């Protein structure tokens, strides 16, 4: 923290809040456009170039719309939980993006031993805010959606955390920037002298990525697991009573969570901003956008599961697989 001004700029503009918000809106556009194209539609088209400004228009419109607080929901929990849903991912995002700044030789704002744990913890806290917000909305759909969200969390949170620990064990650190560094050095070493252990590690981590992405689909409430806000079943689930500013914050919070998830995948498995020729910033954008595209693609391909099928499936397949993956990682970490 040598220069307070630099830190302030870093927090507010780059890689801080303004950048994150812009980037989240961009990713929403990428996601919507990709889903539309996969479904044989055009998607947003007339708002800015190819509809790139569509998420911004939605955001501004919701911000200035009337903000209705239903009589049954007039309590602090209902009013403040959208802020939590928005602010927590926003603040959390500073951590995975550190890997980007550290490569550029900038002063890291929030990078410390154990920040991976903090990120995972904060992402789970968001679900708590969702639950409280839905439950306090005084609407039956809201309560149902909240319960479903909490139930789903019980199913996916464990494999999600387990798999995230894999790279940390291999890197011998719980600091995201160190995990990135480890990936860069080991990939370089592998390219210099290919060996069988390196391939084994890559294979195990690949399983990890797949599990991680599936869990992220549930965490982000995307298609096969959008059980907590299923439109045809419970209208919009826990968001049903929110309107105006609060809805804008909820939507933006969702987008930020999506890029946060993409950034985590990038940092933990894809080598963060490292890459040849192009500058690290471009690599970071490319990799996270790629992750968003993968998530969108997966979400378009499936029908929605029922909550019981989802929970049972997670405990039957994902959790054992995640445990096996961690065990394999532990075994391999001894080898390397």
């Amino acid at each position, binding site marked *: 923290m040598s220069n307070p001004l630099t830190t302030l700029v870093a927090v507010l503009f780059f890689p801080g809040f303004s950048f994150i918000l812009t980037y989240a809106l961009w990713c929403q556009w990428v996601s919507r456009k990709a889903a539309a194209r*996969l*479904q*044989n*539609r055009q998607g947003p088209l007339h708002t800015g170039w190819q509809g790139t400004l569509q998420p911004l228009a939605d955001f501004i419109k919701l911000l200035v719309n009337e903000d209705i607080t239903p009589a049954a929901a007039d309590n602090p929990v209902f009013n403040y939980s959208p802020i939590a849903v928005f602010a927590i991912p926003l603040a959390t995002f500073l951590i995975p993006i550190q890997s980007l700044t550290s490569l550029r030789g900038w002063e890291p704002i929030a990078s410390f031993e154990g920040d991976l744990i903090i990120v995972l913890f904060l992402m789970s806290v968001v679900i708590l805010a969702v639950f409280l917000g839905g439950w306090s909305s005084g*609407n*039956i*759909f809201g309560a*149902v*959606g909240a*319960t*479903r969200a909490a*139930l789903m969390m019980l199913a996916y949170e464990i494999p999600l955390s387990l798999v995230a620990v894999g790279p940390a064990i291999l890197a011998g650190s719980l600091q995201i920037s160190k995990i990135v560094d480890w990936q860069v050095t080991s990939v370089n070493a592998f390219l210099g002298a290919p060996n069988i252990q390196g391939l084994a590690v890559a294979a195990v981590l690949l399983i990890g990525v797949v599990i991680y992405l599936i869990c992220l689909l549930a965490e982000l409430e995307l*298609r*096969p697991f*959008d059980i907590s806000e*299923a*439109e*045809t*079943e*419970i*209208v919009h*689930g826990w968001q049903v009573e929110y309107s105006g500013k609060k809805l804008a914050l909820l939507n933006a919070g969702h987008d930020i969570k999506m890029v946060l998830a993409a950034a985590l995948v990038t940092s933990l498995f894809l080598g963060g901003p490292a890459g040849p020729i192009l500058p690290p910033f471009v690599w970071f954008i490319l990799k996270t956008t790629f992750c968003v595209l993968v998530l969108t693609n997966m979400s*378009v*391909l*499936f*029908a*929605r*599961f*029922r*909550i*019981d*099928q989802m*929970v049972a499936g997670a405990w039957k397949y994902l959790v054992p697989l995640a445990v096996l993956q961690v065990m394999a990682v532990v075994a391999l970490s001894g080898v390397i």
Partner: protein
Amino acid sequence: MSEREFVIPIGPQHPALKEPESFLFTVDGEVVVDVEPRIGYNHRGIEKAMESRNYIQNLYLTERVCGICSNAHQTAYTGAVEEVGGIEIPERAKYVRVFMQELERIHSHLLWLGVAAHEIGFDTMFYYVWRDREVVMDLLEEVSGNRCNYAMATVGGVRRDLPRDKYPKWHKMLDKLAERTNYYIKVASTEKTILERAVGVGYLGKEDMIRLSGSGPNARSSGVPCDIRKLTPYLIYDEIPFEQIVVDNGDVLGQVLVRTLEVVEAVKICKWVLDNIPEGEIAVKFNPLQRLPEGEAVYLVEAQRGELIHYTISDGRNMPYRHKIRAPTLGNIPSLVERLKGGYIADIPITIAGIDPCFSCTDRMAFYDEGKDKTWTWTEGELSRYRKEWYSR
């Protein structure tokens, strides 16, 4: 278990197309004892209005009983009126009516398939099915000039001819429809996420279906051969070679199969009509002031959703004395209720969602617990949660 008391404000709101309807459930412990359907949110009083309009004006009313089965209603209405009046319509008009009826069946079944996919959250399939449905909508528009409410039939024949130079193009469009439908049959019967939500859901056996007078694809999915086109042939259906689709699954998957296979059959019928349609007049003259002799007639039509009856009584004026319409939906409610009855509460939502989206305002069901004197309303979401709790005990 006792604190689960919910009352939701009823607002028939759904992004998919839904007719506002609700169901009142009586449960004894875990088992559904009785289901009371609540309908009438769409009651407009058409039958009364028909008594004060002449036979030509009533064409437009009957057509708008339902915008999806508009041609079926017109076929039944004109058929009943012509039977009372002893009007013999030209042969070519019969072929045109059959052609329209089968096109409408294709459009309606594909619509249902898309909406059913949307119900289980498979939006991509919804978009694809509805994209291919546009082919038949184009065909309908080309024939009649409108995408819904075609106004093709009139008393004494049909309004518009099928121009012969268009037939090669229409054949091509119909081939495309058959090809796409075969693809969707494959998808629906192999895609795992669809099967998870369709197999064994809302089962009803053949005997029960007969007992409850179900009709249409709903009954044919339970193994009851009840196609009016075969049983009491009208127009030229006794000359057309086509198969009656009957499967004995009895569940939601059976309904998907019946409807998609019927689309393929309907395409065949349309192609047969185009190949065999005779030359000639398309209508005999009928004047709005023309009086019909006293009499009565029952006309049965196989609409897309089942058996449709129009019963008309004439007292010798130029307007009906009484005209009764019973749409297939009402006839299928008792069997839907039976599909729900006897099952655990936990299985209700998928049953309704799967049976026919025309009924399912699935979120609004009220429970009346026998023994405990209280009524509360459940949503599908609570039902899912409830099912989960029930199964996990």
